[in-house]
């Protein structure tokens, strides 16, 4: 079997007692690229956060399995070592910890004690990835995300992705705030990982990213559910026409209307 399988079944997630996800079903296999689109506030980041184990999100129902293992039973770091990766929409800034030290700790976290990556090997791998993503080498010695521009943070997330080589990656708006050159570079980095062992869930608002990274499946999320799935042409239609036609097709009313009713 090629790669891992992430299965999300009937996932319900609340934040501060407000239900955000209301039964999400989604399966991602090694080799597959899925895109998730949907209006602001419909729960895309919530889905990503719940998969990774963000402390504020509470799963109230449903399951997440990675190759049959119960992800919800795992701590955040265990999920990562099991093969999951989340490029965050808003990565934290960690003062005093250099990007390079952080990367090395992350790599060593998945290796046995006594089998740490040799320093020279690490530097070589990091330098190659920095070059590939056209990132200034000084960034490795800067404190993690501190004072990084929006675009630098996104590149840094992809740098981590390339060095950590997860089984399944979730990229939450990796394209937001990127200029067109950065978008190409970031896409190049993601595409480099594309093979039958690597599965990816790409959350985005824009077709322009999907021009560089062609998804196998496109899902539309609304009001905490996946309401429609299709091929790459679905993303193109959303770009051209927005979401109203889906709402009409499925008879979805706006949240506020629903609440007032």
């Amino acid at each position, binding site marked *: 079997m090629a790669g891992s399988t992430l299965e999300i079944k009937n996932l319900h997630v609340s934040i501060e007692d407000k239900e955000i996800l209301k039964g999400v079903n989604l399966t991602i296999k090694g080799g597959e690229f899925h895109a998730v689109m949907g209006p602001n506030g419909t729960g895309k980041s919530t889905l990503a956060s719940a998969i990774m*184990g963000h402390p504020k999100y509470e799963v109230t129902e449903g399951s997440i399995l990675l190759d049959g293992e119960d992800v919800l039973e795992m*701590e955040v*770091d265990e999920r990562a070592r099991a093969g999951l990766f989340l490029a965050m929409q808003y990565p934290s800034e*960690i*003062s005093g910890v250099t990007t390079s030290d952080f990367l090395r*700790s992350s790599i060593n*976290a998945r290796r046995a004690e006594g089998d740490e990556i040799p320093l020279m090997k690490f530097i070589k791998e990091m330098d190659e990835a920095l070059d590939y993503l056209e990132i200034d080498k000084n960034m490795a010695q800067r404190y993690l995300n501190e004072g990084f521009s929006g675009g630098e943070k996104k590149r840094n997330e992809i740098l981590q992705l390339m060095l950590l080589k997860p089984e399944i990656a979730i990229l939450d708006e990796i394209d937001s705030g990127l200029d067109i050159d950065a978008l190409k570079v970031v896409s190049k980095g993601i595409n480099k990982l594309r093979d039958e062992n690597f599965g990816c869930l790409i959350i985005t608002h824009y077709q322009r990213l999907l021009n560089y990274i062609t998804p196998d499946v496109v899902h539309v999320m609304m009001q905490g559910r996946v309401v429609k799935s299709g091929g790459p042409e679905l993303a193109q239609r959303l770009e051209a026409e927005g979401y109203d036609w889906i709402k009409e097709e499925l008879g979805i009313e706006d949240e506020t209307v629903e609440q007032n009713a």
Partner: protein
Amino acid sequence: MTVDTKLPYDQSYIEQFSTERNEPAWMKDLRIQALEKADTLEMPKPDKTNISKWNFGQFKHTAAGETISSLTDLPTEIQDFFDKDNLPENLLIQRNQSVAYATVSKDLKDKGVIFTDIFTALKEHEELVKRYYMKDAVSIDEHRLTALHAALMNGGIFVYVPKNVQIEVPLQVVFWQEDPEASLFNHVLVVADENSSLTYVENYISNNETEETVANIVTEVIAQNNAQISFGAVDNFAAGTTSYVNRRGVAYRDATIDWALGQMNDGNTVFENITHLVGDNSTSNAKAVTVGRGKQNTNMTAKIVHFGKNSEGYILQHGVMKDSASNVFNGIGKIEHGASKSNAEQESRVLMLSEKARGDANPILLIDEDDVTAGHAASVGRVDPLQLYYLMSRGITQQEAERLVIHGFLAPVVNQLPIDSVKAQLTQMIERKVN
């Protein structure tokens, strides 16, 4: 006056102590006067910490220490202060109250640099010591502890860098309180004459977990016109030592005094670092870190007083508290009338690692001049769960993630220490204390 702090030593004891060391008459007089003052002066009152129950009275005043022939005779925790492949050229080790080891490069001697223990300095450089000893920086009668210090001073260092001498290689001192009951009334006097520069680093270390004693340390650092002093320190007294650590700087015209201080004591500590920017265009960067654990109580004051025009003072204090340890940071920027175009900035932050840990940060700006700039930042908080989440989402364990955040939090000061081996040592101590 409480019974606790009643003086265990009288005038005839002090006279004899001074006579045995062949001290000059002025020094003996100074001690006796100080002793009299100690009797009537009040204890210091550090802001927001009650020290009335702390042990400042129980200690053994004197203890000698043997000399060592080689650095390899030292316990490993002390050897760790040095880079073994590149032993310090200028090093003094004080064991209890005796010099155990001392080396100064020929180059420095030729240039007239003085780097010796305080008792030798009183004999060989009497006038210089007399000129500066408890005169321009710390006064004998500030409170009971400064007076006691002057009366009972039993160790220390004198450093003097003559005019126009620039020292590139650091001077390093280790004060090793080997005897678990011995007190340390240690006096460090560092004088950089006009247009000179030096880097000085000191370490205090003791192992008295249960035996109680006192460290009463006064450090005076004088930077004459256009002198540059980089002063690093790592204090590591064990839980049994109650410490009063007073490091005071005076910077004259165009002079700079930079402090990088690691306060890693395990006992209760009053720690003050005050710099007087007397001259125009003088500057001080006062950086300090601390880690508190157990039931330790610490009070740390960083204060910069601006007298000179266009003087610049930057205070940065970061502390990590675990268990039921408690720390108060007082940051004081004071700009006197006439010190126009001066800038007083400060930042104090406490990170608490447990429910019972306590932290307090009091930023104070006292400004008597209109044409100045000043700013302060202070925070007391816990490790940000989102930072931990982010680090852990890359596979890093919670423990390692916390370690990274803590080291990162302390890095701005640790990285500033001027000797790599001392920096590494401080990093190790932080590791030991936080884990």
